[in-house]
C-alpha cells in the first residue's frame, strides 16, 4: 500500500466545515457548467 494522500490532504477532504463551503462552491460551479447551455457544432451556411 502506498500512501498517496497525505494526512493534511485527508483532513481537508473530510473536514465537515471546509467541505460545507466546498459543497456550496461545487454546487454553483457544476450548475454554471451544466446549465450554462449547450448547442450544435456544425456551421450552418
Amino acid at each position, binding site marked *: 500500500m502506498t500512501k498517496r494522500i497525505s494526512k493534511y490532504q485527508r483532513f481537508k477532504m473530510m473536514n465537515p466545515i471546509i467541505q*460545507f463551503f466546498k459543497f456550496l462552491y461545487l454546487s454553483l460551479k457544476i450548475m454554471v457548467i*451544466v446549465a450554462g447551455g449547450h448547442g*450544435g457544432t456544425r456551421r450552418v451556411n
Partner: protein
Amino acid sequence: MAKIVVLGAGISGHVAAAHLRRKLSKEHIVEVVSPNSNYQWIPSNIWVGIGRMKSKSILFPLKPLYKKKHINYKQAKAVAFYPEGDIQLENPYVEVEYVVGEQKGKKEKVTYDYLINATGPKLNFEATEGLNPGQNKTFSVCTYNHAEHAWEGLNALIQQMKQGKKAKILIGTGHAKATCQGAAFEYILNVEQELRRHKVRDMAEITWISNEYQLGDFGMDGMLLSYGGMTMKSHEMVEMIFEDRNIKWILGAGVQKIENGIAHYENLEGEFKTENYDFAMLIPSFSGHGFKAYDKTGNDITEKLFKGFMVVDADYTSKPYEEWTVQDWPETYQNPTYKNIFAPGIAFAPPHSISKPRKSKNGTEIFPAPPRTGMPSGITAKLVADNIIDAIKSGKNELQHKGSMGNMGAACIASAGFGLTSGSGISITTFPIVPDYKTYADTQGRKLGKTFASIGLAGHWLKLALHHAFIYKAKMKPLWWLIPE
C-alpha cells in the same frame, strides 16, 4: 391534435414525456410505452449494491404518476417499427407487446405523429460466456434488482471474511467493448470503504479489471483536468486514489468468459490470462434491442432506422481515429429518413467510440464503447421534446434546439464511499463530453476550468443531494422543471 409516443421510461423517456406534457395542451396526447412498472434513479444503484440504501428509496411506480399527470401509459415492450404504416393502417405505428396482466403477450399497433425512441441499451450479458448476474459469483449493479443481489453476495462474503476467510474481489468491465466504467469505478471504491467499515479490509485483495488503455479513461479518452490548483491527467488522479486505497488494476483487458470464480480475458499484448475471484461485479456490454422495421408493403427497412442503436443525424462515415471530429456527433437526434422519429439518451447509434480504438496483437478490439450518462440523456431528451413542441405549435420543423455531446458539459459525481460524515465523492465535470481536439488543441480536447475534479466529503453530499433532487423532479412535484437536467 398530435400524438407523441415515447418508448421507454428511463431518465431520457421520462424527461421527454414530462416536458411534453407540461408544455402541450391536453388536446395533444402524450403516451409512454415501457415494459418497466417503476421509474428508477440508476445512479444510486451503487448504494443499493453495498446495502446502504434500499431499492424502494430509488424507485417509484409510474402508473399513478402518469394517471395524475394525464400521460397515457402502456406497460408493454416495443417489438417492430412501421414508420410508414402498413397496407391496412395509414398512420405510422409501433407494434408493442404487453408484458403483464391479462393482456400479457397481446400485441397492439400504437400509432403516432411523433415517436421518441428512448429505449436505452440492452444489457448484453450473453455477449460474455458465463456472465449472468447472480451466477458464477458475478454480479451487476445495472438495475436495482441486480444491485440487491450484488449486496446479498457481498454481504455473504463479508460474513465469511469475519470468520477469517481471505477473499479476492474483482470489479470492472465484463466485455472487451463494455462501457459505463464510471459505475464500476464508484462501486469498487464503495466496496473498499464498506470492507473497512466492517473491519475486514485486510482480508480482501481488490482488483480493478477494465478494457481501458489507461486508468481514468472512462470511455471518454481520459481527460486533462484541474485538480487542487494543478493540472493533472485523469489517469494520474485515479492511480493516486487506487494506490492510496490499495486497489490493484488490470488494464486493456477484454473479458471473454466467466467460470465459477474465474474470469478469462485477453489483453492488448494478445495474452490469454485468468483472474480468480470470490466476488465480482462486471459491467456487461450494451447493445441495441434488435428491433426490426418495415415499410408500407412489409419490406425490411431495419437499416434505415437502426445500426444496432437508432440511426440519427450523426456522420456514420467510417474513418480513422485521427479524422474524427466533434461534428460527427448528432445535434438533434432526428432520424434522417423519418423526420418524426427521434432517439435521445442511450438509444441513438453513436458515430464511433470516444476513446481511441485499440486492438490486441490477435486483432481483438479492446476499448470502451462511448458512455452516455444521465445528464446528457436528460439534456438530449429535453431538446428533442422542445423541438417537437415547437413543431406542433408552429407547424414548422425547424429544429431550433440543438445539443451535441461535443458542445455540452457533464458532471459525474462518483461516489467513493457512503456516510454523512465518513462518505466521500469524486466530483468531475467535463466540457465538452466528446473532446474537441481542434478548439481545445492544447488541453487534450477539453476546456480547463470547466473540466475539473475534486475529492472529498462534499462530493458525497452532492451526490446525495442530486439523488433527492432528481427523484423530486422525476415525481413531477411543484416547480420540478426548475431543476436542470
